[in-house]
């Protein structure tokens, strides 16, 4: 199962061949995630502080789930940065999905900078309890 969650895309690919892509990756934040699975599906929680609902993008392209968001802060005018742990204003991270997941029924919610995605498994691959009739 674990290989289905390996990452692809902008953050991890293009290390040395494309300097521009590298710079892009460097200026992109990788949101920290928790991913767990139960019988009915997979849940992904991502920390994306500073991202509002209208600046969040969740896309599925073929087998790749892409989560992106832009940080918007209320910055006063003429502000000089004194110290910065966070040095980029864009989050981006992608995940490879596997075939048993039902990408048409992904449920997404964003609250206080935490994105929560629920990716159900297809009906036919969900474990079914087989009732044993007394006979």
């Amino acid at each position, binding site marked *: 199962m674990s290989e289905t*969650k390996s990452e692809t895309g902008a953050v991890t690919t293009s290390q040395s061949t494309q300097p521009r892509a590298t710079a892009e990756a460097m200026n992109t934040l990788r949101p920290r995630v928790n991913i767990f699975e139960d019988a009915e599906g997979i849940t992904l929680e991502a*920390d994306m502080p*500073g991202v509002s609902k209208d600046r969040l993008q969740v896309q599925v392209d073929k087998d790749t789930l892409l989560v992106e968001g832009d940080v918007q*802060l209320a910055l006063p005018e003429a502000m000089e940065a*004194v110290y910065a742990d*966070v040095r980029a204003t864009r989050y981006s991270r992608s995940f490879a999905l596997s075939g048993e997941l039902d990408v048409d029924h992904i449920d997404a919610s964003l609250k206080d900078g935490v994105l929560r995605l629920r990716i159900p498994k297809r009906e036919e691959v969900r474990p079914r309890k087989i009732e044993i009739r007394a006979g």
Partner: protein
Amino acid sequence: MFGRLMNLEGDLFDEFRRMQEELETAFGPRAWPAGIRSAVRGTFPPVNVGATPQGVDVYCFAPGLDPAKLDIAIQQNLLTVAGERPVEMPEGVEYFRQERFSGPFKRVIALPEDLDPEKVEARYTDGVLHVAIQRRATTQPRRIEIK
């Protein structure tokens, strides 16, 4: 705004410049030297600090918190932000990644001395805590009119 601290060009020299900047941030002379209470990079929550002639703005990137349970205090030019982040861990599931911070946290940020601890405003939006502290009126730059 904080973009000025990062490189936007893609060439190798910018890469070196960025590394140099990082080193300078860690060891070299800056506007504010690294405080004795400053935390290691990667500590939760990440913090950005900006300064204006009117005051200092502190941004704590702390998503998924109940702002009512945050403890924000200023004492002797030290801003303390403390709280606890409960990350629910459902039982009976299989975990593949567990990167999100969970548990109690505390960050102490050294402030310049000319701030007025009475004039503080804190706001929690989209998981970012923004604390704005004004400078004392006497230390703000004043425009002198020529008659």
